[in-house]
């Protein structure tokens, strides 16, 4: 039985402000589910509705085997880690950790025992007598997690817990979170705007935009088979190149790139090619001309920015749907990721090829994937 | 401390206590809180509303029992009678002069001193500041008698000057403005110094214009305090022509304490300026009050 289920959940704040639009989602017991999308996409609102801090305008939310729409947050057996940690500033770490247990009238000795366990598990044992104001960001984050864990809840909710940490700490905490989940196996719903976190942490990810679910699946599946233009441009870094083109007679053309598209009817399309799918062209491979503008060596790969002879459709990360970025006549920008040995010179024109299986086609009117 | 002020330059003061409460899970069409708040609001307003009602009644209506809640006829004559019974116009002017003078004095002298304490390094600065601050610890009643004697020795008993002088500058204003000045970016003043502006020029052309919220707060606090001041005027003023409004009201009470309708009319008239000012500038008043809690 699914641990958490959202069925047709909608949240409307005002006549024209729909935060979550008909969201349906099932989270299996013990699963690590990630809700990912850019700001304002509704992921935090969805999380808060699961928590019970917001009430759905319509639809049902089920935790375990009961519908919890009318159940208040305190009775839902869920724990939440807030983005800003929400630690009680006037209490020591020990009292912060013990708070949820004391609220449920757990015996003092049990509270102390459990607090030590959790502190041990998260490396907080030396900090128990300190106050949140005396802790670093990373320590505070762990206390927030500890407070959520101390109750052994049925569901664990996290609202962008790593966004306030510096880059190095973020990488460490990501691994720590994954280990923790492996060890405890609690159903977890995790909200983030960072697609790297989504890809690395989740059992499954739910991509949201504008309150609507764009795609749901395992990270690798979503990466390999994006369902629409938005997901294609959102997942993967650097983002997928989306070139405007058309399909005619079973062949997709975008600028000078020609790719076979068997069984696809004639229409306008967007041709999607990931930067890492582009490599120096060999015979027989569909290829396009690439004028190199900027080369960024990263050590293990080289990011090449340049122009291709096609209208490029850029997916703006700020907007929720695929939007047209003005193309400069018939030339537009594109990005390729090449191995260091294939590093081109700036200003040169090279020919890059792509395997037909790695080309994604999207219908220009609906944005939906045609194949790929 | 208890309130977190915003950070930008002009907004150094606490959020107004009229920011909306928790983003909720949906507002009820009729909240149960109304049942709690309405009676409380009634209790707070009834005395004032009653004052209004009685002020419009005739002597007979006013002293009837059970009291009439709605006057059967409106007697505006009470107001003119009260106005004439004691020189109300004179009282208004005296109060206005007293308040305006103390506000002006405080704004000027406290600004000068606060600026020096905030930005100028001079010999004995720290000690002097502590000494001035210490005067705030002493309640007025303690120095009431000597202050009276000092004003008497200056020959200013029963004069507006004698009323005003002890209140021309208060350490409270110095403290408040110093705190505020210190939060202004010093680069602006340094740039002006390099351009050759005198310290006085910097104060008046740069610092004060940026300090309007603080000055307004100080001005309001001082104005309210002076307008409603009673004990000091009671001691220092002896003739009716120099009475402030509050003193005058007390006189009216003494002379006409059986004519409640008249008395209420007089009382209402005396409160109108403050009430009007409050209703028009609520945000500023509330801010000023909230601010005193910050120190």
């Amino acid at each position, binding site marked *: 039985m699914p641990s958490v289920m959202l069925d047709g959940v909608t949240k409307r704040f005002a006549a024209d402000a729909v935060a979550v639009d008909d969201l349906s989602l099932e989270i299996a017991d013990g699963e690590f589910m990630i809700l990912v999308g850019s700001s304002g996409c509704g992921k935090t609102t969805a999380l808060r509705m699961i928590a*019970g801090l917001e009430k759905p305008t319509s639809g049902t939310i089920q935790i375990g085997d009961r519908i919890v729409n009318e159940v208040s947050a305190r009775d839902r057996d869920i724990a939440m880690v807030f983005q800003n940690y929400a630690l009680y500033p006037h209490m020591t770490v020990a009292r912060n950790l013990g708070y949820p247990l004391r609220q449920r009238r757990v015996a003092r000795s049990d509270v102390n025992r459990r607090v030590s366990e959790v502190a041990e598990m998260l490396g907080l044992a030396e900090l128990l007598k300190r106050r949140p104001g005396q802790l670093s960001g990373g320590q505070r984050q762990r206390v927030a997690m500890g407070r959520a864990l101390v109750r052994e809840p049925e569901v664990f909710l996290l609202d962008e817990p790593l966004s306030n940490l510096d880059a190095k700490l973020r990488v460490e905490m990501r691994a720590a979170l994954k280990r923790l989940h492996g060890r405890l196996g609690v159903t977890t719903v995790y909200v983030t705007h960072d697609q790297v976190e989504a890809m690395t942490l989740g059992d499954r990810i739910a991509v949201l935009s504008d309150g609507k679910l764009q795609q749901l699946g395992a990270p690798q599946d979503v990466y390999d088979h994006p369902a629409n233009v938005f997901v294609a441009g959102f997942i993967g870094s650097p983002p997928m190149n989306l070139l405007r083109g058309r399909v005619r007679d079973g062949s997709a053309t975008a600028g000078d790139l020609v790719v076979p598209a068997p069984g696809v009817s004639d229409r306008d399309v967007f041709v999607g090619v990931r930067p890492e799918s582009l490599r120096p062209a060999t015979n027989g491979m569909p290829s396009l001309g690439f004028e190199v503008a900027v080369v960024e060596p990263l050590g293990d790969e080289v990011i090449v920015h340049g122009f291709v002879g096609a209208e490029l459709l850029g997916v703006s990360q700020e907007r929720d749907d695929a939007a047209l970025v003005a193309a400069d006549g018939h030339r537009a920008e594109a990005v390729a990721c090449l191995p260091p040995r294939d590093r081109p010179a700036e200003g040169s024109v090279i020919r890059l090829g792509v395997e037909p299986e790695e080309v994604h086609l999207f219908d220009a009117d609906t944005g939906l994937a045609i194949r790929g | 401390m208890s309130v977190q002020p915003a950070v930008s330059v002009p907004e150094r003061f*606490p959020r107004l206590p009229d920011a909306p409460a928790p983003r909720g899970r949906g507002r009820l069409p009729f909240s149960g809180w109304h049942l709690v*708040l309405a009676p409380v609001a009634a209790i*707070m307003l009834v005395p004032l509303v009653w004052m209004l009602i009685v002020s419009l009644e005739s002597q007979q209506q006013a002293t009837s029992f059970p009291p009439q809640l709605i006057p059967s006829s409106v007697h505006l004559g009470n107001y003119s009678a009260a106005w004439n019974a004691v020189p109300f116009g004179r009282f208004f002017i005296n109060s206005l002069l007293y308040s305006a003078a103390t506000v002006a004095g405080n704004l000027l002298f406290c600004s000068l001193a606060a600026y020096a304490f905030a930005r100028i390094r001079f010999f004995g600065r720290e000690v002097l500041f502590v000494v001035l601050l210490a*005067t705030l610890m002493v309640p007025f009643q303690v120095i009431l008698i000597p202050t009276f004697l000092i004003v008497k020795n200056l020959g200013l008993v029963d004069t507006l000057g004698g009323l005003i002088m002890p209140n021309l*500058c208060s350490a409270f204003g110095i403290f408040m403005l110093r705190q505020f000045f210190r939060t202004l970016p010093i680069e602006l003043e340094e740039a002006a110094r390099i351009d050759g502006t005198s310290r006085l020029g910097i104060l008046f052309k740069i610092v004060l214009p940026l300090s309007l919220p603080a000055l307004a707060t100080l001005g309001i606090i001082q104005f309210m305090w002076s307008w409603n001041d009673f004990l000091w005027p009671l001691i220092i003023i002896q003739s009716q022509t120099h009475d402030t409004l*509050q003193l005058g009201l007390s006189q009216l009470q003494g002379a006409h304490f059986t004519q409640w309708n008249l008395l209420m009319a007089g009382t209402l008239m005396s409160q109108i300026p403050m009430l009007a000012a409050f209703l028009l500038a609520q945000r500023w*008043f509330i801010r000023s009050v909230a601010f005193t809690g910050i120190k």
Partner: protein
Amino acid sequence: MSAHSATPLAVHRRPSLLKRVIASDHLAGWAFVTPAVILIAVFAIIPIGWSALLSLQSTNLIAPAHYVGLANYRALTKDPAFRSAIGHTVVYTLLFVPISVGGALALAVALNRKIRGIRFYRLAVFIPLVTSTVATGIIFLWLLDPTFGLVNYVLNLVGIPQQQFLQDPNQALYCIVAMTVWSWLGFDVIIYLAALQGIPEDLLEASEMDGASRWSTFRSIVLPLLGPATLFIVVWSTINALQLFDEIYVTTRGGPLGSTTVIVYYLYQQAFQFFNGGYGAAIAMVLFLAILIVTLLQLWVGRRRVYYTS
């Protein structure tokens, strides 16, 4: 022009000492603070010292004073009227402060929500703050009038007999408490409201998620975080309560039968009605000491129990 005037390198002469002093910060600083210093010295600092001096003297405020050492203080210890004044003041304070603090807290919680008309309710609570003490006294004299007062009328409706209120030695002080609470509650409410709104909302949500009931959240999270505000209001209210005067003067003049004579009123009587200047000064010094001790005690307790979040 002498032979000295034109030299290829101008000799740098240090400005005279006088010039340096004038241009220096020290002078500027003192120049700026002088008006304030003079005013405060004359009207605050000197009076403080003089008050102490006066308490050791006997004067009728007109003729020159002469020294009597600690005679005033000794007289105070034996003065039954002074002891009553202290008693009245203490009773008043012990009623005024808790009622104000508790009432203001409850009101602030009630007013901290987003329902229709909340602005009106808040305004209603704040308005009495703006009325002067004299006006308040007059209004309440009439409200509590034994014969014609509105309050007696309302009591009558529920079957309670007419009360003498301010004319009853046993009730007058309590009426003063009610009157001053009405008058000053808004001040405390403003402070509490501001403090309540300073509590980050996610702390309250976290508490809810942690399983706390509304009341438990209030007790464990909100109340402690209101500590600084509470301390301020307690100290401020206490100081004001100990200094009560205006309302007494306007309503009861210390009566009936001296039942509302508080310390400052007694001071006023002694100094300005009976012209015992020295005695009044001694009373003032005792009051000062009392306020100082009480305030320090409260701050000391507060220091140990109140947590500041920044």
